[in-house]
């Protein structure tokens, strides 16, 4: 009997040890449940990070564009008839008004990580007889690479963007038959255009994108698109990707520029991720509930089995409060030990996942983290649910009538 421990601890630990089989079975049950919760949480986090990383590594979190142009019919006074149908105007490639100021304002926001101006538009890429309609993105390499890490996506050459350089998508390079070092002429709608040198070929992860996308220096694109000194959009990366829509609305309110977040432009993806998150949370909640009921069931049986002992303790002067605390402690200890066991199980499953399931190139299917916070949280939650689950059985134990218990 340890002199440092109070009566309740001593009694709870002895009762648990006495019912070894029961204790082992419920600890195993809690452990498996907690293991499942830990593994599912890690899988969800890993999967979401994986999907968003793949999607968001080749696009900005928020894109600022000039406000849409709208037609404003003139009002002709009382005599004039008003048009019933107002045709929407054609959207020209226009610059964002005062874009340098907007960039400064946005860069000063704590939620924003990187800002990069872009002059983008559609042009024709011409090489000999071959012509392709492409999207040209004129960017400031240093700033843009903080948003889309183009150098990481290079499959040939380098992502150098000098005045006469161009980086093209892999499928476009194949279609046009260009290699690094070859020349490519770009033609704007007016027909005029520069001839650039292909310095790099990139794989952006999607065939459609790889067939259309080209990158060049900002001022080269500005000249080509007739946007001298202007930019058609501003790309932004934010700290918390799920707050992107919120940040976009704040930017819009601050600058008067239209701000589109990835959440709005990829709404289907966002909805899918969210649905998965909800499904996962629901499953975890019900596994947790099953654990709590398991603990409660074991403790109810234990109270019935121990009612004679409870009666004796009460006859010796143990208060209802002391008996209540003994069983609450049993619940909490079961939860804690079970969660430690479950943490080991969960960690083993996460490690096995990394070892067994791999992409064809040998990298893990998607990486799962052994996040210490997850383990601490599950231990705390399991202990608390043990405590809550033990409450009714403990109350029942505290209400045992010593006369009935001893006689029985």
């Amino acid at each position, binding site marked *: 009997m340890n002199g440092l421990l109070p*009566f309740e601890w*001593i009694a709870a630990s002895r009762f648990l040890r006495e019912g070894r089989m029961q204790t082992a079975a419920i600890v195993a049950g809690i452990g498996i449940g907690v293991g499942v919760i830990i593994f599912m949480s890690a899988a969800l986090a890993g999967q979401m990070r994986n999907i968003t990383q793949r999607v968001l590594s080749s696009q900005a979190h928020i894109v600022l564009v000039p406000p849409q142009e709208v037609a404003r019919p003139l009002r002709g006074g009382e005599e004039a008839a008003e048009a019933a149908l107002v045709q929407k105007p054609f959207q020209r490639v226009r610059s964002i008004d005062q874009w340098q100021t907007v960039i400064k304002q946005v860069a000063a926001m704590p939620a924003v990580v990187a800002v990069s101006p872009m002059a983008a538009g559609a042009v024709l890429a011409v090489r000999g007889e071959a012509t392709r309609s492409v999207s040209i993105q004129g960017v400031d390499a240093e700033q843009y690479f903080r948003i889309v890490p183009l150098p990481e996506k290079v499959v040939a050459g380098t992502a150098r963007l000098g005045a006469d350089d161009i980086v093209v998508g892999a499928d476009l390079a194949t279609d046009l038959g260009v290699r690094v070092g070859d020349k490519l002429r770009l033609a704007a709608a007016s027909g005029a255009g520069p001839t650039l040198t292909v310095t790099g070929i990139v794989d952006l992860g999607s065939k459609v994108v790889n067939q259309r996308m080209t990158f060049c220096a900002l001022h080269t694109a500005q000249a080509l698109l007739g946007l001298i000194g202007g930019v058609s959009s501003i790309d932004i990366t934010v700290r918390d990707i799920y707050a992107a829509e919120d940040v976009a609305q704040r930017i819009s309110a601050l600058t008067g520029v239209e701000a589109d977040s990835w959440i709005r432009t990829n709404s289907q993806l966002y909805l899918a991720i969210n649905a998965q998150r909800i499904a996962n949370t629901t499953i975890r909640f019900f596994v947790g509930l099953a654990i709590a009921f398991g603990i409660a069931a074991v403790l109810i049986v234990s109270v019935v089995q121990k009612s004679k002992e409870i009666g*004796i*303790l009460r006859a010796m*002067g143990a208060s209802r409060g002391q008996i209540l605390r003994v069983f609450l402690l049993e619940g909490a200890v079961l939860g804690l030990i079970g969660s430690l066991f479950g943490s080991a199980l969960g960690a083993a499953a996460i490690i096995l996942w990394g070892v067994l399931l791999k992409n064809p190139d040998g990298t893990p299917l998607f990486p799962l983290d052994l996040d210490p916070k997850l383990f601490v949280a599950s231990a705390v939650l399991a202990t608390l649910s043990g405590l809550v689950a033990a409450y009714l059985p403990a109350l029942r134990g505290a209400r045992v009538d010593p006369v009935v218990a001893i006689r029985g």
Partner: protein
Amino acid sequence: MADAVVVLEGVRKSYNVGTPVETEVLHGIDLALGRSEFCALMGPSGSGKSTLLNIIGLLDRPTSGQLTIDGHVASGLRDRDLTRLRGHTIGFVFQYHHLLPAFTALENVMMPMLVESGRPDAGMRARADELLASVGLTQWRENLATNMSGGQQQRVAVARALAMQPAVLLADEPTGNLDTASAQAVFDLMKRVNAEQGTTILIVTHNRALADQCGRIVEIVDGRITSDRRLEEKARLDAHQEARRGEG
């Protein structure tokens, strides 16, 4: 009685109160037990002995009447105060010893002190050791309660009942489950406690030979005291020797 430790005045106990099957099992018991008194409570099964013992032991509440234990009026006390009073003034020995099976003999004896103070300490251990020595079970101190004979378990139960130096020791057929020799040994132990420590003892028994060795025999039939007599020293000694001869 001037120096009474247990006083019952008009104690009644009914079960199923307020229902058509209301049954009164104790019909106005008046009883006083003095300090150092060794009293046997006898009566046929169902006469209300155990109910009376539970009421005196503060495990059960009387339906009406007043109960005073060691100067404290128990009637009307809240559950918590009743528990505390019980812990301090009453020691129980039950027929089936009721030791806690998950604990050793020593720990069982320490348990009432542990329940009272909340944490074990060296003083408690020493007192429990002393009590186990006095019942002759020092060498069994580390044995789990379940690994002992019935007589040994009952002696541990007596040692446990004495842990808090209670004013009153209540025993419900403590020897009912033991062979004659073990029964006499347990009974002798209680007599010694009574003589050396002045503990008031009330023992429920069916065993006439043991009852005759007590200083007083109260008989109860159908919830009423039918006889209450004190035995002379000589008669008790004779009964004791008779019992010894019977054992031999």
